[in-house]
Protein backbone atom coordinates (compact mmCIF):
# COMPACT_ATOMS: atom_id res chain seq x y z
CA UNK A 1 0.00 0.00 0.00
CA UNK A 2 1.16 3.52 -0.76
CA UNK A 3 2.70 5.13 2.36
CA UNK A 4 0.58 8.29 2.02
CA UNK A 5 -2.63 6.29 2.03
CA UNK A 6 -1.38 4.31 4.98
CA UNK A 7 -0.70 7.58 6.79
CA UNK A 8 -4.21 8.78 5.99
CA UNK A 9 -5.72 5.57 7.37
CA UNK A 10 -3.56 5.91 10.49
CA UNK A 11 -4.66 9.53 10.93
CA UNK A 12 -8.36 8.67 10.78
CA UNK A 13 -7.84 5.71 13.14
CA UNK A 14 -6.07 7.93 15.68
CA UNK A 15 -8.71 10.66 15.39
CA UNK A 16 -11.51 8.14 15.83
CA UNK A 17 -10.04 6.48 18.88
CA UNK A 18 -9.15 9.85 20.42
CA UNK A 19 -12.77 10.99 20.07
CA UNK A 20 -14.01 7.72 21.55
CA UNK A 21 -11.65 8.22 24.50
CA UNK A 22 -12.74 11.85 24.97
CA UNK A 23 -16.38 10.75 24.98
CA UNK A 24 -15.63 8.23 27.71
CA UNK A 25 -13.67 10.83 29.69
CA UNK A 26 -16.71 13.10 29.46
CA UNK A 27 -18.95 10.30 30.65
CA UNK A 28 -16.65 9.81 33.63
CA UNK A 29 -15.89 13.42 34.53
CA UNK A 30 -18.98 15.54 33.91
CA UNK A 31 -20.93 16.52 37.04
CA UNK A 32 -24.56 15.46 36.48
CA UNK A 33 -26.54 13.13 34.27
CA UNK A 34 -27.75 15.78 31.82
CA UNK A 35 -24.25 17.05 31.09
CA UNK A 36 -23.01 13.47 30.90
CA UNK A 37 -25.40 12.88 28.02
CA UNK A 38 -23.33 15.28 25.89
CA UNK A 39 -20.06 13.35 26.05
CA UNK A 40 -20.80 9.95 24.58
CA UNK A 41 -23.67 10.73 22.19
CA UNK A 42 -21.51 13.11 20.20
CA UNK A 43 -17.93 12.06 20.62
CA UNK A 44 -18.56 8.37 20.11
CA UNK A 45 -20.55 8.81 16.92
CA UNK A 46 -17.64 10.77 15.47
CA UNK A 47 -15.24 8.25 17.01
CA UNK A 48 -16.88 5.39 15.17
CA UNK A 49 -17.13 7.70 12.13
CA UNK A 50 -13.35 8.09 12.04
CA UNK A 51 -12.83 4.34 12.35
CA UNK A 52 -15.31 3.69 9.57
CA UNK A 53 -13.68 6.18 7.20
CA UNK A 54 -10.29 4.59 7.89
CA UNK A 55 -11.75 1.15 7.24
CA UNK A 56 -13.36 2.33 3.99
CA UNK A 57 -10.10 3.77 2.67
CA UNK A 58 -8.10 0.75 3.79
CA UNK A 59 -10.30 -1.89 2.19
CA UNK A 60 -11.00 0.14 -0.95
CA UNK A 61 -7.25 0.38 -1.59
CA UNK A 62 -6.09 -3.02 -0.39
CA UNK A 63 -8.79 -4.99 -2.25
CA UNK A 64 -8.84 -2.63 -5.23
CA UNK A 65 -12.61 -2.47 -5.29
CA UNK A 66 -14.91 0.12 -3.79
CA UNK A 67 -15.81 -0.86 -0.22
CA UNK A 68 -18.59 1.36 1.07
CA UNK A 69 -20.63 -0.94 3.26
CA UNK A 70 -19.06 0.46 6.44
CA UNK A 71 -21.11 3.58 5.69
CA UNK A 72 -24.17 1.65 6.87
CA UNK A 73 -22.80 1.56 10.43
CA UNK A 74 -22.25 5.34 10.53
CA UNK A 75 -25.59 6.03 8.90
CA UNK A 76 -27.35 3.81 11.40
CA UNK A 77 -25.55 5.36 14.37
CA UNK A 78 -26.36 8.89 13.18
CA UNK A 79 -30.04 7.97 13.01
CA UNK A 80 -30.20 6.07 16.30
CA UNK A 81 -27.90 8.01 18.64
CA UNK A 82 -30.25 11.04 18.96
CA UNK A 83 -33.22 8.74 19.54
CA UNK A 84 -31.67 6.81 22.41
CA UNK A 85 -30.27 10.07 23.79
CA UNK A 86 -33.75 11.65 23.74
CA UNK A 87 -35.31 8.60 25.41
CA UNK A 88 -32.68 8.62 28.17
CA UNK A 89 -33.13 12.37 28.79
CA UNK A 90 -36.90 11.88 28.99
CA UNK A 91 -36.49 9.02 31.45
CA UNK A 92 -34.10 11.08 33.56
CA UNK A 93 -36.48 14.05 33.61
CA UNK A 94 -39.32 11.80 34.66
CA UNK A 95 -37.26 10.27 37.46
CA UNK A 96 -36.32 13.80 38.54
CA UNK A 97 -32.60 13.11 38.64
CA UNK A 98 -30.63 15.80 40.50
CA UNK A 99 -29.69 18.78 38.33
CA UNK A 100 -26.34 20.42 38.97
CA UNK A 101 -26.71 23.73 40.85
CA UNK A 102 -25.93 26.62 38.54
CA UNK A 103 -27.89 25.15 35.65
CA UNK A 104 -29.87 27.88 33.93
CA UNK A 105 -33.51 27.47 33.00
CA UNK A 106 -36.03 24.93 34.24
CA UNK A 107 -37.37 21.70 32.81
CA UNK A 108 -41.14 22.02 32.60
CA UNK A 109 -43.52 20.05 34.78
CA UNK A 110 -45.16 17.15 32.99
Amino acid at each position, binding site marked *: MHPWIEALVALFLLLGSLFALIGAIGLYRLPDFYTRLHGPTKATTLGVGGMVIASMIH*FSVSEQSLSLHELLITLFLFITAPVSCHMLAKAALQQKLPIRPGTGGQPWEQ
Partner: protein
Amino acid sequence: MLSLVIPLCLVLIGLAVLLTLARLFKGPDLPDRILALDTLYINAIALIVLFGIWLGSNIVFEAALLIALMGFVGTVAVAKYLLRGDIIE
Protein backbone atom coordinates in the same frame (compact mmCIF):
# COMPACT_ATOMS: atom_id res chain seq x y z
CA MET B 1 3.06 2.31 10.12
CA LEU B 2 -0.31 0.70 10.67
CA SER B 3 1.27 -2.10 12.70
CA LEU B 4 2.32 0.63 15.12
CA VAL B 5 -0.81 2.76 15.09
CA ILE B 6 -3.36 0.00 15.51
CA PRO B 7 -2.07 -1.25 18.91
CA LEU B 8 -2.00 2.39 20.06
CA CYS B 9 -5.63 2.82 19.01
CA LEU B 10 -6.50 -0.43 20.78
CA VAL B 11 -4.98 1.00 23.96
CA LEU B 12 -6.92 4.29 23.58
CA ILE B 13 -10.24 2.52 23.09
CA GLY B 14 -9.39 0.09 25.87
CA LEU B 15 -8.97 3.10 28.19
CA ALA B 16 -12.32 4.44 26.99
CA VAL B 17 -13.95 1.08 27.82
CA LEU B 18 -12.37 1.11 31.30
CA LEU B 19 -13.68 4.64 32.01
CA THR B 20 -17.13 3.63 30.80
CA LEU B 21 -17.04 0.54 33.02
CA ALA B 22 -16.11 2.76 35.97
CA ARG B 23 -19.20 4.88 35.29
CA LEU B 24 -21.28 1.72 34.91
CA PHE B 25 -20.31 0.54 38.39
CA LYS B 26 -20.44 3.99 39.99
CA GLY B 27 -23.87 4.92 38.77
CA PRO B 28 -25.29 6.69 40.76
CA ASP B 29 -28.69 6.32 39.04
CA LEU B 30 -30.17 3.89 36.55
CA PRO B 31 -30.08 6.28 33.54
CA ASP B 32 -26.34 6.76 34.16
CA ARG B 33 -25.82 3.03 33.93
CA ILE B 34 -27.91 2.72 30.78
CA LEU B 35 -25.92 5.57 29.22
CA ALA B 36 -22.71 3.75 30.15
CA LEU B 37 -23.98 0.54 28.50
CA ASP B 38 -24.91 2.57 25.42
CA THR B 39 -21.39 4.02 25.23
CA LEU B 40 -19.96 0.56 25.81
CA TYR B 41 -21.64 -0.91 22.75
CA ILE B 42 -20.53 2.01 20.58
CA ASN B 43 -16.97 1.45 21.79
CA ALA B 44 -17.37 -2.24 20.97
CA ILE B 45 -18.27 -1.30 17.38
CA ALA B 46 -15.12 0.82 17.15
CA LEU B 47 -13.04 -2.06 18.51
CA ILE B 48 -14.49 -4.53 16.02
CA VAL B 49 -13.90 -2.21 13.04
CA LEU B 50 -10.34 -1.72 14.25
CA PHE B 51 -9.89 -5.48 14.64
CA GLY B 52 -11.14 -5.93 11.08
CA ILE B 53 -8.46 -3.57 9.73
CA TRP B 54 -5.85 -5.40 11.81
CA LEU B 55 -6.92 -8.77 10.41
CA GLY B 56 -7.11 -7.24 6.95
CA SER B 57 -10.45 -8.91 6.43
CA ASN B 58 -13.95 -7.63 5.91
CA ILE B 59 -15.50 -10.59 7.65
CA VAL B 60 -16.16 -8.88 10.99
CA PHE B 61 -18.25 -6.11 9.39
CA GLU B 62 -21.52 -7.98 9.91
CA ALA B 63 -20.73 -8.37 13.61
CA ALA B 64 -20.27 -4.60 13.98
CA LEU B 65 -23.53 -3.90 12.14
CA LEU B 66 -25.43 -6.42 14.29
CA ILE B 67 -24.09 -4.88 17.49
CA ALA B 68 -25.19 -1.45 16.26
CA LEU B 69 -28.71 -2.78 15.58
CA MET B 70 -29.11 -4.79 18.78
CA GLY B 71 -27.48 -2.21 21.03
CA PHE B 72 -29.90 0.48 19.90
CA VAL B 73 -32.91 -1.76 20.44
CA GLY B 74 -31.63 -2.71 23.89
CA THR B 75 -31.04 0.90 24.97
CA VAL B 76 -34.45 2.05 23.78
CA ALA B 77 -36.18 -0.93 25.40
CA VAL B 78 -34.58 -0.26 28.79
CA ALA B 79 -35.21 3.50 28.54
CA LYS B 80 -38.84 2.83 27.67
CA TYR B 81 -39.10 0.46 30.62
CA LEU B 82 -37.87 3.25 32.89
CA LEU B 83 -40.35 5.70 31.36
CA ARG B 84 -43.46 3.53 31.38
CA GLY B 85 -42.77 0.50 33.56
CA ASP B 86 -43.53 -1.60 30.50
CA ILE B 87 -41.90 -2.19 27.13
CA ILE B 88 -44.73 -3.29 24.85
CA GLU B 89 -48.00 -1.69 25.81
